[in-house]
């Protein structure tokens, strides 16, 4: 049964349940808030201001959301670039989460744009400014969303029995996969570069020419963290077996990337002599240590092989690394960003409700698609193969 481990199947079951119902209500609330935003403007529903022109719709939904959505890219890279075919069962679920994460990040950007009707200017030669980091991020994310839908297309084609198109797509899939690895490398690093032009307004702990590498390495390790998290949640939510035999070695890869990251991060801080900032008695310094404690925690949690077979510890390690990434990004874009005295920002309730609504779309979409389409590894085959 060499094949068994590649099989994916719909989970089945009812689409209407408590989880989907709650998600539906939250999405409806978001729609109401967005209506107000488009009629009355950004100020009517958000706490955005000229000291903090980027709020959670950008920093959480796009900067953090897209890094969370790196699971698809991180796992696909293992499988297809480093030829670790054994991780294949993890590809589809991870890709699905990425697809949602990125598509919704794109939608969040449109909602946040003050002059959204002009958004196509980014892609238009007369307007596009190739010196702008935002231009690079926007074009690259758009391309990646398209590439991911193609990468994920086999799932729909399979379901609807379109085997001819499926076979044709298979032949070109390696190009799509290569692009699907390159594009996130480009824009995840550029999301870090976004901070560079903000110059001295960003605390030296997060302002460096190494930002692209720092954001890339954390996005990759967050990708693995999300897969750990999501595998454990899907297993308990759907009462399935946890793929520990896959998660254990993958967690090891994750620790490797993370170790490389910490070397780069602290090496850079030492070389620039910026570490002193971390020992000032400020909230910003505290936030720096919380961030790095989260990045170091996985080594304590799953540093040894026995711990890596413990689903609870794998889950916690995944969560820790996700939080590390969250803090790195919040710190750079909001907490360690200072335009001068007098400016404050904390998201408003409606603003939070939109972010929560976006997250609900992800959860709802994940449930509907895994129940109806072949995404998660087929359970019986899986049990037979590993009994």
């Amino acid at each position, binding site marked *: 049964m*060499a*094949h068994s481990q*590649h099989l*994916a199947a719909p989970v089945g079951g009812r689409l209407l349940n408590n989880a989907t119902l709650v998600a539906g209500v939250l999405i409806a609330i978001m729609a109401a808030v967005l209506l107000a935003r488009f*009629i009355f*403007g*950004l*100020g*009517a529903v958000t706490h955005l*201001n*000229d000291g903090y*022109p*980027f709020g959670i719709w950008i920093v959480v939904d796009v900067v953090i959301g897209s890094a969370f959505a790196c699971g698809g890219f991180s796992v696909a890279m293992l*499988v*297809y*670039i*480093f*030829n670790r*075919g054994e991780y*294949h069962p993890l590809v589809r679920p991870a890709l699905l989460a990425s697809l949602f994460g990125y598509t919704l990040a794109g939608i969040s950007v449109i909602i946040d*744009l*003050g*002059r959204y009707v*002009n*958004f196509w*200017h*980014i892609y238009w030669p007369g*307007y*596009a*400014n190739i*010196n*702008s*980091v*935002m*231009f*690079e991020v926007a074009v690259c994310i758009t391309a990646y969303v398209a590439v991911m839908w193609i990468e994920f297309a*086999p799932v729909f084609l*399979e379901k609807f029995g379109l*085997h001819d198109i499926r*076979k044709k797509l*298979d032949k070109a*899939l*390696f190009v799509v996969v*290569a692009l699907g690895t*390159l594009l996130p*490398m*480009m824009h995840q690093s550029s999301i870090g*570069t*976004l901070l*560079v*032009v903000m*110059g*001295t*307004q960003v605390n030296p702990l997060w302002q460096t*020419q190494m*930002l*692209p590498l720092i954001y890339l390495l954390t996005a990759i390790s967050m990708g693995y963290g999300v897969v750990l998290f999501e595998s454990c949640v899907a297993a308990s939510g759907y009462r399935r077996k946890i793929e520990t035999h896959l998660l254990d070695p993958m967690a090891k890869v994750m620790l490797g990337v993370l170790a490389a990251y910490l070397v780069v991060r602290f090496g850079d801080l030492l070389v620039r002599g910026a570490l002193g900032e971390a020992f000032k008695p400020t909230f910003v310094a505290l936030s720096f240590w919380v961030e790095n404690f989260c990045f170091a925690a996985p080594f304590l949690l799953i540093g040894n092989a026995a711990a890596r077979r413990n689903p609870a510890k794998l889950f916690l390690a995944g969560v820790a690394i996700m939080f590390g990434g969250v803090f790195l990004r919040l710190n750079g874009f909001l907490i360690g*960003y200072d*335009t001068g005295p*007098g400016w404050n920002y904390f998201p408003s309730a409606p603003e939070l409700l939109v972010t929560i609504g976006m997250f609900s779309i992800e959860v709802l979409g994940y449930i509907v698609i895994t129940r109806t389409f072949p995404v998660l590894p087929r359970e019986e085959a899986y049990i037979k193969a590993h009994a």
Partner: protein
Amino acid sequence: MRADENPRRNFLKGCVAAGGVAAASAVAPPVAARETRQRPPEALGLLFDATLCVGCKACVAACKQANENPAEFSTVDPLWDTPLDTSARTYNLIKMYRHGTMETKDAETNGYAFMKTSCMHCADPSCVSACPVSAMTKDAATGIVEYNPEACIGCRYCVAACPFGIPKYQYDSAYGKIGKCELCRHRTKDGHYSACAEVCPTGATLYGKTADLLAEAKRRLALKPGSIARFPRGNLSGGPDQSYEAYAGTYKQHVYGDTEYGGTQVLKLSAVDFEKVGMPYLPPEAAAAHSETLQHTLYGGLAMPVVVLGALTWAARRNVHRGGDSNGDGGSKEGEK
């Protein structure tokens, strides 16, 4: 045994490819290293001399009028235009520094001072580098940093990027614009210049070519504090002589805007420490130069992405079908073994 039948060896190959790419990017010289830009030779700007400013705010009112901006209120009774900061509808503001008893003008302790806040028209502007759709541009001849609402997508990256907090967005509008000083470029065609400089009674705000303004600023720094000297008003680089005699201030020996981020076209003189009056310390290399150096080192001519894509395609080509993305409907080599 074919190489691609050994997953471990292929894994290693993947690592080698990835390592090669990483090494190439690490050692690649920043060919595109972009130097900080300097002001164009005919750059236009303003010189604000805080020691001459009497805080009359005629320039604030004139700026409102010249740009057809409405009054903004911060008091209970909306009687006068009383903005507390520049905004998308207030491009120019005189802010006050106060300390202790506020007895002496232009004294750091127990004194007070005024400072103008408006766009500095940077030599290497962060807002222009940041804007993804060229809605912020710098005129090649005059160096004026201009805004075009027809191009703008309202992303507010310029707001985040500007070190002086100058571009501001209209959050209270359903389809807001950015607002900022454009050095009254719309007034030049009928012989006018910056309204703020035109109305300034003391010449504290002076209009002209930045080269001339810089020379004038340096002349003032060399004056003996308290001595009587002549001070021009209005337009330094043309127009009638409106100069008058006044006492030279006790200047800090620095022209703000001479070197900051490569220089700005609006220059400032002050008797109070610049950071205390809200002008931040900025290094001589512009953040825009750092940002664009990174951007073009990584993506210049798409060279690096193409190389990486090549390596990735090579690796993916060997592995995609072996891994067998096909879900049990044939096509997987592993299935045929």
